[in-house]
Structures are given as C-alpha cells and as structure tokens.
C-alpha cells in the first residue's frame, strides 16, 4: 500500500540536512515498528521517497514522503511514529494513496513560504502592499543565474504565483517543481532591490508552510490527497 506521510520540521531540527533526515526516518520506521516494504536485490532498502529537499536552516510545516507499507492503519502508524520522534519533528498525517498516484517528488507544483525577519524587525516597515502589486504587474523579471558553465538570464515571473503581505511576514506561493523551482528569498530580493533597499539574506527567516500539486489547473495540498485508512 502506498502511503503519504506529512511531517513538520522545526526548532533545532532545521539544522539537520535532507540526507540525514531521510536516514533518520529510515531508523524511525524501525523504532516505530512500521511494516514498511523493502526492495529486492542484494542490498534491500526501505521503499521510501521524499517529496522535496528542504534546505538547512529552513523550518517547515508541510513536508512529505511516500512509503510502501505492507500493513497498518493511519492512526496507529501516526501514533507509533510520533512516539519515537525527537523534539522538532511531528508526524502530521498518514494517508493511503491510490495505487496509481504519482509519486511525491514528481507531483510537486508549488510551495507556500512565509518570510520574516529573524529579529524583531517587521517586514511591513520595508515592503508595502503597493510594492507587491507592482512586482506582480510585471510581465517578466529577469535575474542572472550562475550555472556551471556560464551566467544565464532567467525570467522568474512565471514562477511566482502569489505574494501577500501580512502582519510581520510575507506569504509567497511559488513554483516548486523540479524544472522551475524558485527559492523564496530570490523573490524577496527583487522586492527590496526594486526599492533600492539593501538586501541581506542572512537577516531573514524562511518557513515552508505546505507543498502543492496541480490537478485540473487547481493547486491542491499534497496532504489533501489520499484518505485516512
């Protein structure tokens, strides 16, 4: 059975990188006694795949991985996993996916981020509603991207889906597909540079709130697919 597991990663766990998180979950499955399936071959491994890597330093309340399990129920799996979690990782949901469901990584279309200052500064003091409207009005926004061989011009506008300013933070809905992944701070940098404000990315805190797939032109949260079982 294919299940999708949603988890959060916050507090000190934001300092643990993606590869280590994957290994952590492999061990967690064993500690929790989840009946996870193993691949065949000479060195069998757990059948588990993660939706998208999360950078070190970024907290998240919407991370996903898919796993192939042999038996179990949503609540039991969720509870037994939560019992063996460390502080800073919570299992938020365990849902059964239909057998033909696309795997997590391939299905990602977008991600929602909140960006704020790390300290007490309020981003609203720097960026206004109007700044956002004027950015979104642009038909194209070119940035230079450094690839291995050369510098390339890259239009980020089509990858920005929505920006909203809230009290104390900016909410960003951006492309998170493997082909068009856009880092939230790239957009924030544009907002600042448009106003000739100095931008230092170390001052900002980024939290990933959720990830979405596109079904019939609509963005649906990865966590809304599948059912409790």
């Amino acid at each position, binding site marked *: 059975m294919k299940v999708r597991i949603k988890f959060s990663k916050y507090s000190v766990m934001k*300092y643990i990188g993606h590869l280590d998180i994957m290994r952590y979950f492999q061990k967690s499955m064993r500690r929790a006694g989840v009946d996870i399936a193993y691949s065949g071959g000479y060195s069998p491994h757990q059948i588990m795949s993660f939706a998208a890597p999360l950078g070190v330093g970024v907290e998240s309340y919407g991370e996903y991985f898919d796993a192939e399990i042999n038996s179990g129920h949503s609540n039991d799996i969720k509870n037994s996993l939560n019992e063996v979690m460390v502080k800073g990782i919570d299992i938020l949901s365990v849902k059964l996916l239909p057998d033909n469901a696309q795997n997590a990584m391939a299905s990602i279309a977008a991600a929602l981020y909140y960006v704020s200052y790390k300290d007490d500064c309020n981003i609203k003091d720097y960026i206004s509603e109007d700044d956002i409207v004027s950015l979104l009005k642009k038909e194209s926004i070119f940035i230079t991207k450094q690839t291995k061989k050369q510098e390339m011009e890259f239009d980020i506008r089509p990858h920005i889906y929505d920006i909203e300013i809230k009290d104390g933070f900016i909410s960003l809905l951006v492309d998170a597909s493997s082909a068009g992944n856009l880092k939230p701070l790239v957009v924030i940098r544009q907002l600042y540079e448009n106003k000739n404000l100095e931008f230092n990315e170390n001052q900002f805190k980024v939290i990933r709130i959720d990830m979405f797939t596109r079904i019939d032109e609509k963005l649906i949260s990865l966590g809304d697919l599948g059912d409790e079982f």
Partner: protein
Amino acid sequence: MLLKDLNKENETKLALSDDILMNVEKCARYIGNEINSVVKNKNDIEIRFAMCFPDVYEIGMSHIGIQILYDMFNKYDDVWCERVYSPWTDLDLIMRERNIPLFALESQDPIKDFDFLGITIQYEMCYTNILQILDLAQIPLLAADRGDDMPIVIGGGPCAYNPEPICDFFDVFYIGEGEAVYRDFLDIYKECKANGESRREFLIKIAALGCFYVPSLYDVEYNDDNTIKSFKPNTAGVPEVVTKAIVKDMKNCDYPVKPVVPFIKCTQDRAVLEIQRGCIRGCRFCQAGELYRPVRERDVEDMKKKGLEILKNTGHEEISLSSLSSSDYSHLEELVDYLIDECSKNFINISLPSLRIDNYALDAFGKVQDVKKSSLTFAPEAGTQRMRNVINKGLTEEDILNGSRMAFERGWNKVKLYFMLGLPGETREDIEGIGVLCDKIAREFFDTVPKEERKNGPVQITASTSFFIPKPFTAFQWAPMNKRDEFLEKAYITRTSIISQLNQKRIKYNWHEADVSELEGVFARGDRRLNKVILNAYHKGCIYDAWGDMFDMDKWLCAFKEENVDMDFYTIRERSLDEILPWDFLDCGVNKEWLKKEWLNAKEGKVTPNCKVQCNGCGAAKYKTGICTGDGK
C-alpha cells in the same frame, strides 16, 4: 496559522546563534537533541557530569565507552551526564573570537559550571585536543591553576595507564573500568561537598580508594641521565601503587540498550554489542590485551536479548560485535547464528568482527556479506614464523593458507593482511617474509580456483604495514623503537620484496606515515617532562594531531627543541630491566616480573600458550574472575 504562535512554541535554547550555526560545517554536531539523548531537569539532580571524547563529534559518537558511561551515570537519579566533543576548527575560531564557552550538547550549558569533566583518552594523538577542550571551556589548562569552583577534570581510558605526559592537566585519573567504582566516587564527592571540604581534601579521600591517581599527590625525582630516580606520594594516606578497578561480575554487568543515535553519519553508524572484555592470547605487542585482563565474557542470553533491544530502541540497520578476539568467545557461534536469524527477518546487516578463519567463520561471513565485494582479513603482524613466535602471535602460515584456500573455494578473492614493521629482533628476512607470504597466498588462489571459476577476477591481496610502537604494560615496554629513517627503509624493503614476487601484480602495498608514529612513541612511554612540550605545541596551534592533514611535525619538533626535551630518549633506547618506568606505580593486573619473563621469552622466540590452554601466572588471577581461577599465583 499565525507566525508568532509558530515562533513562540518552537524555540529551543542553543548555545550557538543561528548566524554561527549556518556558517560552520556540519552544524548538527553542536545541537544535541539526538534519539536517546538524556535531558534532565538540572534542579532535580545534584551532580552534573560532562563526558568528553577529545575529537570531533563523528569520531566521539562512534566510541562505545562513552555510551556505556553515559548510560551508567544517567541511571543514577542524582546525576545528569551530558556529552561534549571537540569543536571543529571553524567553530573553534569563532568561539575564541566571540568568547563563547564550550558547552555540553544536551543542556547547551557551559561545562565550566559542571561538577566534573571526564575525558576519555583513547590514543596519544588527541593530547592537544584535550587542551583545546579545557581552553574553550575556559578552564585553566594546568590543574594547579584551577580554583575549587572549576569542574574536577578526570581522565580515563587506555592512555590513563601512562598518564604522566599529561598529568599536569588533570586533577585525577581513574585507572580501570568505569562501571566498577564511580558510584563510591560520587558518594564521597557529595559527602565532601556537604561538609564543605576542599577540593584537595576530596582528592586525598578518593586517592585512598586505591584506583584513582591524583598527580598532585605524587612527586618525581630524576637521575642525571633523566631516568626516574623515585616516584612517591607526598601526602599521607595516598597509596604508593594505584591498582586498576575492574568489573568482577561481567555476566551481570549492565549494558546500554538505548545508545544515543547521531543524526549525521559517524565513523561507526551501527548498534554495537560488547561480548567480552580482555583477551587470552597474550600477543606481546598488544597493550589492550594486558590492560583488560583477565578475559571476562558477557552472558550470551543477555547479549541476545540486549542486541534486539538495542536495534528496537535505535532503529539501526546494522549491528556489530565488539571484543579483542571474538573467535575466543565461547558462545560465539550461538550468538552469531541467533543474530543472523533475527536480523535477516528484519533486513538488518551484521558486521562480523575479525574472526579466525575456519569453516564456521566462512559460513557466517557468507551469510552476512557479499562474498564478491568483501575481503578476508588476517593479521599475521610479522612475515615469518620466527618473528610471529617472538611477538607470540599464534597465527601460523598453515592457518593462513588453509583459511585462504577455504575462502577461495567459496568465492572470495580479496584478502587483506596487516603487518607491523620495527618489531624487536626483526631481521631483513622477516621483512621480506611479508612479500613471500603474500605471494604464497596468491599461489594458493591460482592452485585452488581454476580459470573458468574465477568469476570475480583473479585474487587481490592488500598488505598494510604500520610501525611498531612499544607500549607500557607489555613485554615490549623495554624495547627500542625504530627511528624514522629505519621505518622508511623497512617500508622500502617490504615494497621491494613484494614487487619481486612472482604474483606481484596481485599484491597491493599500503604503508603509514612515520612522523606521527614517532610522536606516538614518545607519548606512549613518556614522563612528566612532556607536559610542557604538549602545552608549547598547543600554543603553537597544534590540534587534531590524529588527522593526517592537520598534523604538523615541524611545530612539534620546534616545541621539543624549545623545551629542551629529547624525543629519542623516550623511543630508541633499549631500557634496562631495573629502570623505574613512569607507569610502574600503576598496577594493571599484570605484574612486572611476568612481563620481564615474557620479554626474555620473546628474545628466545619462545611461545607462551594462551590462558585457555594454561595459566602462565601473569598476576591477573588476583581478581579471581573471568578465565582465572585459583589464588593468583
């Protein structure tokens, strides 16, 4: 979801700011929060103990000794034991610049506020890291400079059996196994604290327990030739000889079933099951074999149970067995068969230790390893039987060739061999014997496996040599160590011998750097006069000396010169049997008379049988435990 709600509930106190963590390598080294790490309320406990492995996190976390002590201490209701490791050089720099004191992982509190700082000393090349730990912790480097408000700095582990080169930096050394006497030690500490007694009074009291060495309570006098004239206590009630403490009832000795599981990849990333302590073999170069005598086995039923518990509590995908000579564990087959059975059900790998190569071992290896990829390992240590008899290594050429043949028949084609160069009495013929032996193994392969069956290609043999360093409490503690030039020449002879063999294309040769070996040799049998050299080298920036790319011999040579200490005095002399050795005041269970006998036996190439065959009267029988019976004759 409101951002401010997210922020409030999710903050955890860290010693290092986000800014720093995001700019150092592998920041996960410094945040704690691992599975099975123990967090207590500091208001509910009386003693705070910081347990330190003086190397970087990934190395320290691979050490089972700290897991054992951590578990033991945290089982006491009145103690909270936390871990601390050497910060990597990038963080080290930042901590000095910003005056951030070294902190323990669990609480993130500065260790200078703790009651104890325990440092496990596993190898000589970590000595400058010990100073780094003290320095970053903002604890005075010299014990004599510390006030009673500083933590008591206690050293343990194999290097504590010659603590003299670092004795100025420690308040006390625990000689022996931590499980044995720490409870009494802590009770005395609490008593002294309650009575308002001074640090010195406490140290005198625990010295009287007999297994604690308090350097400040002993004085050394030297002869004109720099050998030791006398080594005596300077205070009443302090024993002349400090005797190691050991666990007498190993079968009922506790073992951690919830070891801390690191997030990042460490050198040893698996569950470890210690099956026994000590060794029966008595190889004359081996210090560990002497220090942990007498051999004591753990209970096999207990190990089976604990093995599974550890896997359940950690989620590790691999389990390994740990002991000095696993083939000698009387219930090895039972335990291995059990683990293979259990583990194969759950897709857990087993890493088998080096075993004597026989049918059973090959069967077992075949079940747990990919025969095509793994190698068979032998440690002959010397190239000829004569030399192997000198070092009392019981492995014969017949054993090696038979074992190899059996393995080749089952599809193995990779063989690893470990040797030492610079052993006492070594001749050119002995060294060349290495090449000859490798070639014989290759020939065995070609004789055993017909061309059509060489599915994995021809045999590949890797011979590795390290340089012999005489260690305290071995029969070779009087032996001269080779000079750097001699080592290099011997490596050259080995290489030449290998290249001249018929099957030289099948043999690869790896050899080690000589510089570090020389320094290790100095510290291994060093005395108090080395403290100032280590301090000097540390101030020159020497650190992480066990790391090849960080080790700087020039700085060390300069330190020796400035402090007017001659390295050769410690290494290349053959010591006289009457010389007072810096570690003579310690009793590791094995008596000096017996070691002298073994030294003479070595010179005659006489073999001493192992403890299972007969008791040779080394002295360990006085503990009346493990393999020893009788009254310690």
